[in-house]
């Protein structure tokens, strides 16, 4: 019975990942990230992703406050934020967020405030989506780890 659960969880993980890849939300970089995980750093991915969430939320907050400012003109600063966001997104392989960032940066380079606002909303949406999905993924993985631990207690 427990074995079945493990299989199901593995299938779930695969399905979820396939979905994320298919939708273009993630790309190969995420897989590479997963490959970096080994015995010395077992929670590498979740660790990095958590840093990513932390940083991203900060950046999103900054971007929103910049855009909400009435006499807003500091597109330069926004560009820096966006570059950071883009860099970290491509590092974890969040492809769609990266694409939105590119569009956002294009809008900010043209000083197109309406475009920026739209892009920001889109970005926030995408971010929430990704966050939910990745949380889901980590949950499943945690369960898997638990299941694995339960199933093969002797090996550890």
């Amino acid at each position, binding site marked *: 019975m427990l074995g079945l659960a493990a299989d199901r969880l593995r299938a779930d993980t695969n399905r979820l990942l396939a979905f994320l*890849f*298919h939708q*273009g939300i993630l790309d190969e*970089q995420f897989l590479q990230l997963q490959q970096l995980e080994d015995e010395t750093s077992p929670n*590498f991915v979740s*660790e990095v992703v958590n840093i990513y969430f932390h*940083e991203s939320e900060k950046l999103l907050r900054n971007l929103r406050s910049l855009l909400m400012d009435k006499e807003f003109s500091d597109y330069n600063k926004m560009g820096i934020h966006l570059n950071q966001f883009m*860099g*970290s997104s491509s*590092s974890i392989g969040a492809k769609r967020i990266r694409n939105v960032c590119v569009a956002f940066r294009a809008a900010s380079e043209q000083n197109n405030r309406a475009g920026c606002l739209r892009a920001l909303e889109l970005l926030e949406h995408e971010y929430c989506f990704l966050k939910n999905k990745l949380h889901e993924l980590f949950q499943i993985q945690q369960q898997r780890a638990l299941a694995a631990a339960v199933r093969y207690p002797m090996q550890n």
Partner: protein
Amino acid sequence: MGLKLQQSQHQHQHQHHSVAVKVNEQTGTKRGYTFIQANRAWLPKFLLLWVMVMAFLSTWIYKKMDADIKVRRKEVLSSMCDERARMLQDQFSVSVNHVHALAILISTFHYYKNPSAIDQETFAEYTARTAFERPLLSGVAYAERVVHSERGEFEKQHGWTIKTMQREPSPVRDEYAPVILSQETVSYIESLDMMSGEEDRENILRARATGKAVLTSPFRLLGSHHLGVVLTFPVYKSKLPTRPTVEERIEATAGYLGGAFDVESLVENLLGQLAGKQAILVNVYDITNSSDHLIMYGHQNQDGDLALLYESKLDFGDPFRKHTMICRYQQKAPTSWTALTTAFLFFVICLLVGYILYGAAIHIVKVEDDFHEMQELKVRAEAADVAKSQFLATVSHEIRTPMNGILGMLALLLDTDLSSTQRDYAQTAQVCGKALIALINEVLDRAKIEAGKLEMETVPFDLRSILDDVLSLFSEKSRNKGVELAVFVSDKVPEMVMGDPGRFRQIITNLVGNSVKFTERGHIFVKVHLAENTKPVVDAKVETCLNGGSDGGVPISDAHQFKTLSGYEAADERNSWDSFKHLVSYEESRYDASINMTVPGETSQSVTLMVSVEDTGIGIPLIAQDRVFMPFMQADSSTSRNYGGTGIGLSITKCLVELMGGHISFVSRPQVGSTFTFTADFGRCKKASFNDTKKSNTEDLPSSFRGLKAIVVDRKPVRAAVTRYHLKRLGMLAEVAGSVKIAASACGKNGSSCGSKIQPDIILVEKDLWLSVEDGGLSLRMLDWKQNGQAFKLPKMVLLATNITNVELEKAKAAGFVDTVIMKPMRASMVAACLQQVLGIGNKKQAGKDVQNGSLRSLLCGKKILVVDDNMVNRRVAAGALKKFGAAVECAESGKVALKLLQIPHSFDACFMDIQMPEMDGFEATRQIRMMESQANEQMNGSGIDKGFARKGEWHVPILAMTADVIHATYDECLKCGMDGYVSKPFEEENLYQAVTKFFKV
């Protein structure tokens, strides 16, 4: 999903927009209007204006001509009138003169003679005989002056009484003037008192006062009732003083001579003598009283041309009376037809000219309109073409994405536990999906090429290993068909060339794939050599023909065998041994020479390679040969039924070859085979980069075979050359022997002489040769030889085979003949692996990716590396990746921190630097680090102390840029500010390995 849709829509809009902008630009620049086109709305107005102007002009011409005619008419009239007037005047004066003469006659013969010499009879006689002198006078008469006192005596003397004009006895007056002498024509006026008529009396008084001829105003003459005037001359009794007064004249007056002018008949006669009397009307007037003109001739109210009349003065010698002649044309001036027709014709001609011009202009406008329309359509068509290509590219791309999902899912599905049927289904689906992806990729390529978006890379790559890869890709298929697949690369071709390996691979794959598809027997042979080598080969070929193939050594058992790879005939005989061996031998001679001296071609930057792919397949039908390179064209529709495929491959190949600066051609003979030949330009690798990249890009060929000797037993020279080529790549020395016998004898001899210079380690035997000699007892001999106790020197036997059945293999092994079998097509790495197995040489390295991974690990293990990135996530990921390879990683979150950490002395082996950082970017940080290092180096050299931990005597920490966009400009910038290389972010192992190998030697 909604978001995705929105995004793609946005993209679409953008593309559409860009196309539209393009169209606008194009039309904008091309729209140049001519003058006519610009004023097209004015054209009818121009025509109208023209017509009006011409109408005006022709009217003017008409008027001018008409006026000319009128002037001439007037001139004619005036000259005629003057002529008439002068004649009339002349005739008149002649008559007057004659009357004057008569007056003198009377005064001479009637008064100076006493008694008078003239009586009525004499006068009548004389005047009658001289009447021709006075044609204008109807008659002349002489009246004597009689005062009242003398009346009685006078009447008595003549025997009649003086009568008045009314033929009554004259009443008493002061004076009388009774006619005493008269011409016969007017004899009825004898004895009439001329003073009794009012006009005559006036005339008489005026005549005797002036002493000249005077005229009456016109009146109806007594006899004829014609209009006429009476001329009166005074006759004086005595001679007058030279300047007589009026009284003296009156006193001296003796009588009056008078004559009647019949003006009407006079003028009638006169005009009758002149030409053109019909044309004009003549009126003569007495205009003494200027207010009341008295007509003398002509009708007062005659119709005629009233518009034009001419007046000429007449002088009849009486100063008191004034006369004038008025002439006018009988008819009104005729309408001048010449003027009218001239003007009209002019107008018509101008009208026609105007219309022609208008028509031409309209035509021009129309043609130009059409032209512009065509241009616009052309631009639109071009835009549509571009849009099509873009659409194709986009759609292909969009299809690829979900297809990847499908394939991925299928792969995942295949990983799960499936029943065999399910597995079969899933595998079929996967194969189909892969085929679809391949097709889409081809279409995408085609579209990209058409849209001009395909760019060629220039990276160093190893041509030979790519060829090996491609061939091994098809090895399965060719082996099943029994087709021999081989590759030969000339030694002159550089080991590494600069170019686009992916595209090169694609070309080769396409050509070889085609060949494999259409070949059922024989061979497929890929040959690469320098393009400049072709010429000596051709020369050499001629030479061999002359030689007549004297260098035999190759026993040709079958007369119908051709000297090609497999013995089958090939379409293009350039690859047959006759020419091929010269290439090989030429190279050999050159090869030895080129070790010490540089080959001339090597100095140039680029190298042109000629690649030919030869097969012995079904060939291309002659009809289809000229459309081989057209997309979606296959030889005929049955081809696609029998062999599948879209027919797009060759057109892509052609495009790619052209992008590589070469051209492709082929020779094909139906049922014999085809040979595709293409040239391509590649860059030569610089030696430095050559060494760096060599390890990473090529598969590592083990060096453990270097110096080993081998004998290739093969009677087909081309095939032997191919085998030798592969062995050579492994660093082995190879000899070719035509048969096992020769090889064995060579071995035997060497074996007996024990350790002489050529001791083969390996003998490679072709399968067909082995089969043919197997029964000849050779194997036994070999076996004997084997048991001769020279086991440690014994060469290993290797069988080369395209396909071999298990039975055959078992047989061969059982016979102890062979140690192993190498399956064709050969590739260096596979040969190496087989030989390792046979020779028992241990391979120190793992194959494939593990090699790289391992080597990367060995490179990085224990190294201390600094990662500089402001982005925490990136930092963490980079650190994780590097740690995985065993490096000790330290992180810095800004350029400044990095500077602090890299203060000399430090213990870092390398530094990975992000370029885009706030405050101090990667470039700036690197510059400062380099500055710091150079200062430290100077100081060190200056002080002359060689510190122990300074490597190579100076500080230089390798700095690698980390960048997300790998553009060459960025790369140049990196090098400029002192960095040593770059890795793309996120890390890719291969990339990382390439970059890192430069600094860390194993």
